[in-house]
């Protein structure tokens, strides 16, 4: 099959086919400048404020029915979605929410509660809240768990934490979230004839897109073979999955990749790349590389809540809706939030290339230095495997702001204790520790792990281990934390872990939205 020379998508029920240099613009610019849909605002152009939030039909949540209440639109930041990232998508903007020219239940709650002050952040809030209302109607909480809301206020705050407002102090908006009349809220999916949109998009979905314009080339493969074939011919092409890292670098740091491979169609066509399954025989979770962080969060909320808890404070809902686990791994940052867990869990990365087929790499062998990966220029990450264990697991993220902030320091502990007689101090059987933000890569602290075996699980032991950590690392000072601060944190986190896991431990956990 020949290649398409245009990307194909829908905005508010209307079809768009865009080719040529125009695909190298962001969705927000396209909406505002080409379609005059100016409700979508651009404020930071890097995913930090949510003013550009639009809704995208999420095919990854395939369990959910596509039409009717509960169908899955998710909010993403249009400023970091280039048009080559949205092939095959149906986008709904604030202008597209209008049902019979009336305002919907979310909009009227915002008017009633005075949730709009200057109003500039408001359209982004409205779209995000419509996704929230749809999820609430379907009984899916914003943190991805299928449990009913336990603490509705926290869940609303969580759902809206990717939306900045400088005027209201948020309280009125939270009240609006609580006041949405779910009985009358008409889900976004009901406003459009999704079946015919789907049919139209289906007609082009099996065809890869190749666009060369303005001295740049973008390829949107329809299947894995095409992707690997393209990479074989264009090794080093910039792979874009969620784009929450790449597109930010384009907007902010002047990154201008000549050759781009966008995985947005792959994730729609190849279920193995987005599925998350538990292989009960090996008790291993197999994660398709292109599944969204949101899906990963939802899955682990049931199986390893501690990991879901870290994903809960990962970026914002919009970032988790777009971003992928593969992107977090391949971005290679020593403060990537998913990494400490993957390190102590002993995860494996599956990569594929046309020339050499598939191979697997243990996560701690994957990083060779600062942003240096064991990943050849013609390889694509296709999956991540995470063995489940019964160990005591604790994950920590320290940042200035609790939410929507890049970490200054991260840590993961997996501990198993020897069974001991009642009342006796337990003895450490096995320990794995990983620290992030203290070196060029996330570090497994093997010396500490070896030393711990056989020691009693008490304050003295953990103080010794903490001191070992402090002397083993050599962190730098940067905007996110001074060297001394990181040294102290590396030391103290061992005490904190002990306090939390000793039976007399009193240190409380931050509440999680669940």
């Amino acid at each position, binding site marked *: 099959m020949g290649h398409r020379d245009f990307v194909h998508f829908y905005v508010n029920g209307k079809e768009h086919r865009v080719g040529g*240099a125009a695909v*190298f*613009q962001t969705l927000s610019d396209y909406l*505002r*400048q080409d379609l005059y849909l*100016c*409700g979508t*605002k*651009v*404020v*930071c*152009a*890097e995913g*930090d404020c949510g*003013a550009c939030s639009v809704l995208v039909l999420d095919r990854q949540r395939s369990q959910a029915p596509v039409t009717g209440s509960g169908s899955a639109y998710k909010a993403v930041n249009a400023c970091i979605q280039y048009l080559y990232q949205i092939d095959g998508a149906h986008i709904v903007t*604030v202008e597209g929410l209008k049902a019979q020219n009336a*305002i919907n239940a979310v*909009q*009227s709650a*915002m*008017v009633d509660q*005075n949730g*709009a*002050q*200057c*109003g*500039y*952040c408001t*359209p982004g809030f*409205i779209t995000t809240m419509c996704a929230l209302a749809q999820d609430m109607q379907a009984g899916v909480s914003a943190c991805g768990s299928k449990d009913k809301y336990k603490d509705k206020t*926290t869940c609303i*705050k*969580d759902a*809206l*934490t*990717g939306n*900045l*407002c*400088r*005027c*209201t*102090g*948020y*309280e009125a908006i939270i009240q609006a979230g609580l006041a949405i009349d779910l009985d009358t809220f008409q889900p976004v999916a009901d406003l459009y004839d999704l079946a015919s949109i789907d049919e139209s998009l289906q007609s082009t979905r099996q065809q890869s897109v190749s666009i060369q314009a303005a001295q740049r080339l973008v390829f949107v493969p329809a299947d894995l073979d095409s992707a690997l074939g393209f990479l074989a011919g264009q090794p080093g092409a910039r792979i874009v999955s969620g784009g929450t890292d790449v597109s930010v670098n384009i907007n902010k740091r*002047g990154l201008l990749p000549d050759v781009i491979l966008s995985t947005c169609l792959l994730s729609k066509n190849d279920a193995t790349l987005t599925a998350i399954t538990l292989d009960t025989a090996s008790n291993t979770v197999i994660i398709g590389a292109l599944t969204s962080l949101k899906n990963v969060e939802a899955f682990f909320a049931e199986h390893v809540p501690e990991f879901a808890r870290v994903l809960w404070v990962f970026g914002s809902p919009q970032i988790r809706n777009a971003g992928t686990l593969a992107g977090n791994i391949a971005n290679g940052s020593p403060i990537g939030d998913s990494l400490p867990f993957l390190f102590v869990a002993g995860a494996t990365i599956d990569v594929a290339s046309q020339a050499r087929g598939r191979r697997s790499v243990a996560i701690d062998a994957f990083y060779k230095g600062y942003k240096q990966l064991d990943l050849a220029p013609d390889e694509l990450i296709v999956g991540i495997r995470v063995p489940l264990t019964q160990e005591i697991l604790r994950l920590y993220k*320290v940042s*200035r*702001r*609790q*939410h*929507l902030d890049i970490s200054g320091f991260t840590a993961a502990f997996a501990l198993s204790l020897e069974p001991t007689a009642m009342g006796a101090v337990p003895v450490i059987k096995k320990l794995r520790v990983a620290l992030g933000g203290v070196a060029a890569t996330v570090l497994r602290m093997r010396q500490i792990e070896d030393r711990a075996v056989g020691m009693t699980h008490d304050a003295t032991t953990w103080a010794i281990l903490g001191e070992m950590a402090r002397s083993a690392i050599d962190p730098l000072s940067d*905007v996110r934390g*001074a060297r*001394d*601060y990181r040294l102290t944190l590396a030391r*103290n*986190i061992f*005490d*904190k872990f002990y306090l939390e896991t000793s039976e007399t431990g009193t240190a*409380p956990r931050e509440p999680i939205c669940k």
Partner: protein
Amino acid sequence: MPAKNIEHRIIGKATDRIDGPLKVTGQAKYTSDRHLPGMLYAVPVGATIANGTIQSIDDREARALPGVLGIYHRGNIGQIYRVPPDKGFDFKTDEARPPFEDDTVRYYGQFVAVAVAETLEAATDAASRVKVQYQAQTPNVKGRFFEENPKLKVESERGNATEAFTNATAAHKIEQIYSSPAQFHSAIELHGTVADYDGRQLTVYETTQAIGTHRNVIAAMLGLDVQNVKVISKFLGSGFGGKLWPWTHSVLACTLARDLGRPIKLVNTRKAVFHTSGHRPEIEQRIRLSATPQGHLTSIQHDYINHAAMLDKYVETCGEATKYFYSCPNVKISSAVAKRNVGSPTSMRGPGAVPGLFATESALDELAIKLGMDPVQLRIINEPQKDEGLDIPFASRHLLECYKTGAQKFGWDKRNPKVGSMRNNDGLILGWGTAGAGWIAERIPAQASVELGHDGSIKVLCGTQDIGTGTYTILAQIAAEELKVPLDRIEVKLGDTTLPPGPLSGGSMVTGSVIPAVQQAAQTAAKLVLSAAATAPNSPYNGVDEKELDFKDGMVHRKSEDAKAGVPFDQLLKTCKYKVITGKGQSAGTFGGGKPKESRHSYGAHFVEVTWQPETARLRINRVVTVIDAGKILNPKAGRNQIEGSIVMGMGMALFEGGRYESRLGAPINSNFADYVMAVHLDVPDLDVTFLEFANTDLNAYGARGIGEIGLAGFAAATCNAVYHATGVRVRDLPIRIEDLLTSQV
């Protein structure tokens, strides 16, 4: 108790914003949403040095790009004039140098060229390909201004503070330096301009809090007749002071529109806003306090220094509240400015008082601890009977009532003063702190008109702007109240310099200022309709004494009859062949005049609870009780919002916000929303806001004062005081960094 309040129909009632539906549907049109036929995009090039000179500009590659019209710089930009000197607000700019005036670069990001193209993409690309050669010098962006021992200028003095301080015993005095970094307004809407010149008339769509000033400045800088410049700002994505005075982006956009004859859109990037559109300056303040053993203040010395741009001399008047806040016989306030290679500072929400009260209210807490006194008690003891700075009575001062109500709601009496001694149910260490707030209550001149049309329309016209605070709604409320008609009958027109000149949106003065003007306009319009009714030949009331007629629910009727028995005013106008009847109103200003007769301010008290987890050095603001007396609250829905918004901004000021200048390049390195951290939803604590509403009708008939800024005043101090109570660490340099708390022994 609140003064006797007059019963109102609409004033003081929780009212939905009349522009709410426009905003929630994305239909409200902001500056950057304007698209004009034939419009070009302009993207400025910012300097990549903070100090030095431009050697050469190579724009060949940029100009050769498809769709690019030109690259403009000092060599080829059209004439830009200077703004005439002016003491008031009419011609105010904080960056007086016209853009591109010389080859000197004085701050990082200063515009040195601008690319113009058919599309935004092309203009952005072109701007990035302009190659500028600089001769760079080491910039000066240093803080720690007192170390340089600058000469201080005395701003206010009474008694002999130096002597009283020297004579006081060490146990009863404190001397400390407090600092706060550059803080950025970070209004969500980016600064931008759409300018359109038709050969005679220049229309400027602008993100401005002061359309009138903007028009005057642009007319002066472009050399145009002020009559031929129109500034429009229908909706503004807030400003917090950052959009009060014109910035260079607008001058460039208007100049290009004038010279190229095509409309120009120029919207700053977020980074350019950080670099070129103002900030609250970095400040150092030295506070010296002394007291009697019983806690009576015997002296206050308040010295402050703020950084200013090389060519401008912005002074942050940190001592504003110090003059009147407490009773003290010996007070000396002095200031200085430290010239730095930074963009021009400007007013930011609560200029002067907000940083000033951070220092003084922190110092007062330190004094209370030193004296072993409860901090609320210390404030009660030092409550003044009059404004001792100006020696005039207070118009309405209810600070102690604010403390009393707040302490009760917060449970302050359960506070154990010992550091680190309190825990909550989860075992987290608690810190409780308090501080006071104050802000001016003034009026600036305003005009307004009310038009009653034969089509039944009722229009309020005022050349002010709604920056998000709800001015559209307030004006509609006032007119509805005065005309005795339902709110939805009123249409409000703002944000256009062809309307009767209204106030700038700053200093929390709009509401207080427009009330008399709109009241008068509405009353006059109603009166004129009645006299029309009484005199027009076709009128059913022809010959009736005007005094026996009334205007209610849109009906003209005899006082002796029910309104329902009257004639709808539009019908009357039609019958009498009047198209429209206009009532005009105006209010005089009180701000910036001579010495006032009374001291007019609003007051408040904050109570803050923080939680502290030493192991991971985790600090959170958990609970806030804020009590404000700003007189009558015209719309409680909008009022609460203002204070909650201020508190959340105050959390940012206390915990996160601060520009950091890199010393080698002089660049503010955290010039984006990933690194300039503000509070998000999940940071929001339990907020309890109360208004006391002591209505004082001195300023206007409703007794309303502004509420846009007071909520931010004192909040950072209350937080630092709470942090000390939890951790034993006194933070005097904002924002509170977790690193600073690692010395905590708790």
